[in-house]
């Protein structure tokens, strides 16, 4: 319950900061990394549901054409973040992405989905429009979101080192 409350408060703060500086902070530059950190905080369905519901509430409050981020980002989390917490820091598996890169990679995917969700699909955009989309929407957001997600990844790792985050606990409880 505490983690749920902390996730809601962090998401609320991120949205509040974004709304306060609409001209300075691109939409989702803070909120999406926070939600990606929520997704990766603990293995299990509960963070997935919490993050998904928060994404959905954000979409209701600040809608794009399609709710692509809450629709597809949970599947990306399932594909990128390993379910087994004990294997998170394994180095022998070649195809396993390093754990500190999970949040930045998920942030990039979420930012891309959010930009694509603003495109009108009755007429598919041409290459020039896509280039404008990347340069005007995606890059400004990533310039702020990627460093923030890296900081969050470090904080998550720090929390694990200091015992605030216990990803193995859920598995122990299950056993």
């Amino acid at each position, binding site marked *: 319950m505490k983690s749920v409350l902390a996730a809601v408060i962090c998401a609320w703060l991120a949205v509040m900061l974004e709304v306060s500086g609409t001209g300075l902070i691109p939409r989702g530059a803070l909120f999406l990394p926070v939600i990606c950190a929520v997704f990766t905080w603990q293995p299990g369905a509960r963070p997935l*549901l919490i993050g998904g519901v928060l994404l959905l509430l954000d979409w209701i409050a600040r809608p794009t054409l399609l709710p692509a981020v809450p629709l597809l980002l949970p599947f990306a989390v*399932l594909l990128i973040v390993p379910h087994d917490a004990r294997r998170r820091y394994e180095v022998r598996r070649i195809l396993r992405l390093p754990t500190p890169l999970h949040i930045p990679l998920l942030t990039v995917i979420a930012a891309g989905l959010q930009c694509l969700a603003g495109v009108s699909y009755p007429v598919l955009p041409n290459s020039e429009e896509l280039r404008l989309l990347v340069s005007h929407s995606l890059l400004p957001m990533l310039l702020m979101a990627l460093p923030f997600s890296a900081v969050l990844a470090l904080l998550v790792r720090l929390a694990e080192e200091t015992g605030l985050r216990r990803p193995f606990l859920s598995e122990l409880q299950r056993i």
Partner: protein
Amino acid sequence: MWLAACSLAALSLATAAADRLGLLSSVRPVLMDTVSPGRLLLNLQSGSAESVSAAERTQAQDDSHAAETARLEQQQMLRRLMIENAVLRRELQRDRRRFGLNDPEEVRSALLQLSLLPAQVLSCRDGLPVDLRELLVDAGRARGLTRSELVVQGHGGIVGAGRAQSVQPGDRVLDGLAVVGRIEKSARWVSLVQPISASGFRANVLLLRKTDAGAVFGARGILEGVGEPSCRLNGIAATEAVAVGDEVVAADVEGLQGPQLYFGKVVQADFLAGGQWDIRVAPAVSLEELREVQILHWELQPAEPSVTATENRRP
């Protein structure tokens, strides 16, 4: 976990469907309201921090001349008050002359006071303007907004007003300002705006044509948003002359006469075989470029009881 992800996907699709049906329009201001206390606090803190830093800089730069500056400020304040007093006296005399007239329309006009309320666009549906159906602005019932108040964009003198000053639907705007939409819903700190191109928007308009002899008002019609980039102009008689390039201005604001608001320009005028006009109007402003808007109010002047008493005293 896959079940949770699938459930979220289904919930997202259901939410998107509900949004398409317009079921979420009342939830959206409430959600934005939940972040508004923090946002307002942050804006307040940043504003006070800027003012404090500016004051500190001024004090550091001109510390030795503080007394002289204070004396000059007092003199300026005195002059300003004298000028203000003279202006108020002149306005009082003008109002007395105006209220003495027998024309009820003039009395009604004199009772109305127009004001503009600045508002920042908080959220705007991303994508093309075609699909843009609503905006969220950071002005709500706490600042006196009610439904159907017009939202205009432009520069100029801005005066804040609220419900405490009897703000009502039916506002007017200064010349040169273009109508963006109208308040559809207002919460405590935020309001939902319906753009003029959205379905359901209607306004009484007049055609305005520029000729060599000057500007000439044309036919009166009803401007309707149809959910497309251009609006439809209905109610124009077949005998009226319409041409591409005619300007479209507001005929009235919620039944009240006032300055013409600018809506846009006629971009298509086809005379159909059935004897009807098919007129399309391009809105004057692009919604996706909006960062700030002004909301126009009209209110009754505080002198209303005096006018009523004057009217009753008349034989």
